[in-house]
């Protein structure tokens, strides 16, 4: 890859000429190999394009079928539920969430209050040192 500069000229409805100019200095063998590779790629592309052109309608038809099938599957799995159910929090759930928020706020406040210096959790200590500090702290 990235072996040559390519110039395509001519009338695409009639004949196109491709001129390849190798990048860097190349010997005659390299030029012959480049020509061979280009012709082989051209043959492969001719087949690939023909197969793609011949099968375009078939491929589109199968994908249309797939879309219909997927819709049928999803409706069978959750009838009438194109979108998630609307949130219906019960009074208990609402109060549970309020409790949760209050609890986390307290926890964060406590954490901030305990903060001493730039590394309140001793997170920058080695594990061994942090464990020792924790042990010393808890036994104190």
């Amino acid at each position, binding site marked *: *890859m*990235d*072996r040559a500069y390519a110039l395509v000229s001519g009338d695409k409805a009639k004949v196109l000429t491709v001129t390849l100019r190798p990048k860097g200095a190349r010997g005659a063998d390299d030029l012959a190999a480049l020509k061979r*590779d*280009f012709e*082989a*790629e051209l*043959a*492969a592309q*001719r*087949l*690939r394009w*023909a*197969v*793609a052109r*011949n*099968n375009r309608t*078939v*491929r589109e*038809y*199968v*994908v249309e*079928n*797939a*879309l219909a*099938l*997927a*819709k049928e*599957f*999803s409706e069978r799995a*959750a009838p009438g*539920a194109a*979108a*998630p*159910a*609307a*949130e219906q*929090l*019960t009074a208990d*759930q609402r109060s*549970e*969430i309020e409790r*949760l*928020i209050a609890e*986390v*706020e307290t*926890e*964060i406040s406590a*954490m901030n209050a305990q*903060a001493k210096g*730039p*590394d309140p*959790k001793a*997170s*920058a200590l*080695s*594990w*061994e*040192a*942090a464990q020792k500090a924790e042990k010393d702290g808890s036994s104190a």
Partner: protein
Amino acid sequence: MGSGAEGGKGRFLGLSRLTSLPSGARTDPAGLGFFGFRDFGDWVLITNDYGRWQMLEKNDFERFLAGGVKPGEVLHEELSGRGFIRDRMDFGDLAASYVRQNSFRFIPGPSLHMVVVTLRCNQKCRYCHSSVVDPSRTDTDMDLETARKTVDFIFATPNPSLCIEFQGGEPLLNWPIVKFIVEYAQAKAKAQKRRLLLALVNNFTLMTDDKLQFLIDHGVSICTSLDGPADLHDANRPFLGGGSAQTKVVSWVKRIMALAQTDDIRKPYMPSALMTTTRLSLARGPEIVDLYRDLGMEQIFLRPLSPIGYAKRVWGEIGYDYADFLRFYEETLDYILELNVSGRSGIMERNALILLTKIVKGEDPGFMDLRWPAGTVLGCLAYNYDGRIFVSDEGRMVDHQGDPIFNVGTVTDSWQDVLDHPTSRACVAASNLETQPMCAQCAYKPWCGAEPVFHYEMQRSIAGQMPTSPWCGTHMGIFDILLKRLREPKTRAVFDGWLERDLCQWQENGPTIPGQPVTEAAS
């Protein structure tokens, strides 16, 4: 242009990574169904849009190309049954196969939501994608209000199954917010009757018994990083305070594994580990595998390093050519296969499992990096500590390096605004392999994917240029390696065993009772 499939490996002198036709092959395309092909020398792989495939001997491939495989032949029946003969197609069967293979295309909205609760970290990993800051920078912690709005946004997206994954930085440094999100999300899931999975990615250095109990009680799966033996892991992932981070990881993995062994319900929460391959890892594949075996891990994920975020800056020190990764992958996979064949271990490799789920089972494993259109926005979103939303975690890392291009909104926006954001649309349009030169014709297209952020970082184009893309080279190489081993009866038997054992319990695909933790594996 090679006649054999070495396109994914090594240096290329051909015009394309695609292989050419057999020399002098006669072709008659009129009766052929659509197919891509890849020449492996003695045999050729053919595939189609519907995820069907066949390995053909070279002479059979040439007969197929020339329209010489006739009705009445066994081969004709096989090819017809798989959609390769144009006038013998079972459209209903092929459509069903297409849906199964590409199920993600028919499910609305992202399933994977990565929440960065803090950028702080107490490790300074040499490749850190996550673009972290010093532990003292509490200003990069997600606050309660943002956490609540983040969960509200996630539950406003339409996918019936959601996975929230805690990322960092080191998420345990902002533990109250992790706890809040877990409980608030579970309450919302219950109220909305949605499936919810929760996962925590952490380095274990700040894990405690209380935190572990909370995670187990709430069904949060735990994932960590384990790069290999202590010297390798600690060189890749230095601990800010000094000392061995690997010791800590190994100690917690052992503890949780022991817990999981004693309780079936907890089995799905057995810790998983991610291994990142750096230059230091390349010669040490078997040693790394042995460590995972010794710990009783069921899988190892041999992941290549991505030159994104911080890793891009230090690529010269720890990076490598993708051909080096492929050599490492092939050698290490062969070691794993040998362990399996000899009965010494049943350890599985996750890259292989992901691709084999696609190839052999014809199903989507829910892996974001290998789908098209790309997983960005349609499959996943990343939420920064400050409430900004990115197309993926990699997109967030690019932002951390000063380029906000992949920011698609904030948690106060609507899901529709994020989906309609020009960057979201550009990522989807750029990652359609049908419009990508080379990919559109590649035999691996049914199983492959696109990665706009990687190509933006590497090639300054979200579409990328596949013939020179290391991403393409890596994946094409892995496909080549696996397909060759699928053809060998011994290794095929190992792969089949893996697929039987692996329940494809991908985080974003697992079954759950609405609002409840996962208690059983997928069937």
